[in-house]
């Protein structure tokens, strides 16, 4: 089953076309890594898929529900209504580059607040989900801490736990380790690796090439608003076919 499907997605900021017709689909259980130079459209692609940006035209569905489509003969994208959007947003999670934890909430409340006030779960239920996730992230002791008292790596693991709490079908990562030093990066990558082993469907924008090769089933190389090359992870990293891909990877 396709958990993410994008067809001919186009997006401009003013005169600058950032996505020039992207086709991408992600199967259940698949881990897709998106690599490429800055300004190539990776983050915009992720932000469009997660409703943080609206596209100009094209089609996107998540978990089988149509988020946006462009009627034949029209060049204007038509989005799902508010109610459907809420439904679609509950199907995915997003982990940000700079965490975006809520600083005034404890770690526990960061993870449980949406469960309680959006998904109407009881406090007990939310707490037990939270305990389970914190254990998985190796942060069992940190439930009562506040984000400002945690290292960057711990904060990012809390934000992964927060994204997982609502039990999403697909998880997006926007450069999850770019704000971390190498030592802290390892802990976060381990968590993502564990999720991959559990067959969590994930789309990861990353600059960590060796990690992408190890953990991803498929790698997508984006540049200039288009998908330049894609294929099985080891193939794209070890044997890139496109000259632009070769040039980019030579820098690593």
């Amino acid at each position, binding site marked *: 089953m396709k958990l993410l499907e994008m067809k001919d997605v186009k997006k401009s900021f003013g005169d600058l076309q950032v996505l020039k017709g992207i086709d991408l689909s992600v199967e259940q259980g698949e881990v897709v890594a998106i690599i490429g130079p800055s300004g190539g459209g990776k983050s915009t692609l992720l932000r469009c898929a*997660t*409703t*943080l940006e609206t596209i100009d035209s094209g089609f996107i569905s998540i978990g089988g529900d149509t988020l946006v489509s462009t009627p034949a003969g029209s060049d204007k994208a038509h989005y799902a209504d508010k109610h459907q959007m*809420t439904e679609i*947003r*509950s199907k*995915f*999670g*997003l982990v*940000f580059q*700079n965490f*975006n*934890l*809520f*600083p*005034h909430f404890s770690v526990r409340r960061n993870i449980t*607040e*949406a469960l309680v*006030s*959006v*998904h109407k779960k009881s406090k007990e239920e939310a707490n037990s989900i939270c305990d389970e996730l914190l254990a998985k992230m190796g942060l069992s002791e940190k439930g009562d801490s*506040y*984000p*400002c008292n945690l290292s960057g790596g711990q904060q990012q693991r809390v934000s992964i736990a*927060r*994204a997982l709490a*609502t039990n999403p079908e697909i998880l997006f990562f926007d450069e999850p380790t770019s704000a971390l030093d190498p030592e802290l990066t390892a802990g976060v990558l381990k968590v993502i690796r564990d999720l991959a082993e559990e067959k969590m469907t994930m789309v990861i924008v990353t600059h960590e090439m060796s990690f992408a090769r190890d953990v991803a089933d498929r790698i997508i190389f984006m540049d200039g608003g288009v998908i330049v090359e894609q294929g099985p992870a080891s193939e794209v990293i070890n044997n890139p076919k496109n000259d632009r891909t070769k040039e980019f990877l030579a820098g690593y």
Partner: protein
Amino acid sequence: MERYISTITQLAAGFKFTLIIFAFTILFSIPLGLLVAKLRMSKFKVISGITRVYISIMRGTPLMLQLLLVYFLPNMLFGIALRDLNFGGVDYRLTATVIGFSLNYAAYFAEIFRGGIQSIPKGQYEAAQILGFTNTQTFFKIVLPQVIKNVLPAVTNEVITLVKDTSLAQVLSVTEMFTAAKALSSAQVSIMPLIAAGVFYYVMNGLVEIVMNRFEKSMNYYH
């Protein structure tokens, strides 16, 4: 000795009105300021434009003049006899004072709140959106608590200024403390009642500082 006691008693009687003006202005101007801040940030140019003019006038003209205008406007516009005007048995002079102060302070609070709201990183809104919070939930659960922490020092400034500004109510002949002090001062041909009034203001602001400091400290658990 008797004179001192009588002075203090009369000042205290005036202080009651000072407190009333202070308390009701805080009560009305803070929520109103939040609303004005929201309108000022509205996407609709007409709404934000009107709000901008409102704030500009409130900040750009003397509060004393604004108090006089609020007081005389019902008569100027509708020919209502001000002597007969009272709401809930309260003299219109006091009501007009509270309205004038609230409108004026709302403008200042609005700009403070706007600064506070705009200082919240976009990522907070995005995280809340992804997690499914409604706009109202996002504002009250995520944004507002952080805004309050950010704006507290500036709000404390305004509150302290308000304590002293209450003396402007004398322009509408509300016998708040400063009016009483002035009357006592000329009757006794002495500056002591005015100095005593100064002590009252200073002590009250000392209390304001203590309360606001506690409030600030209570939010120091994160940064």
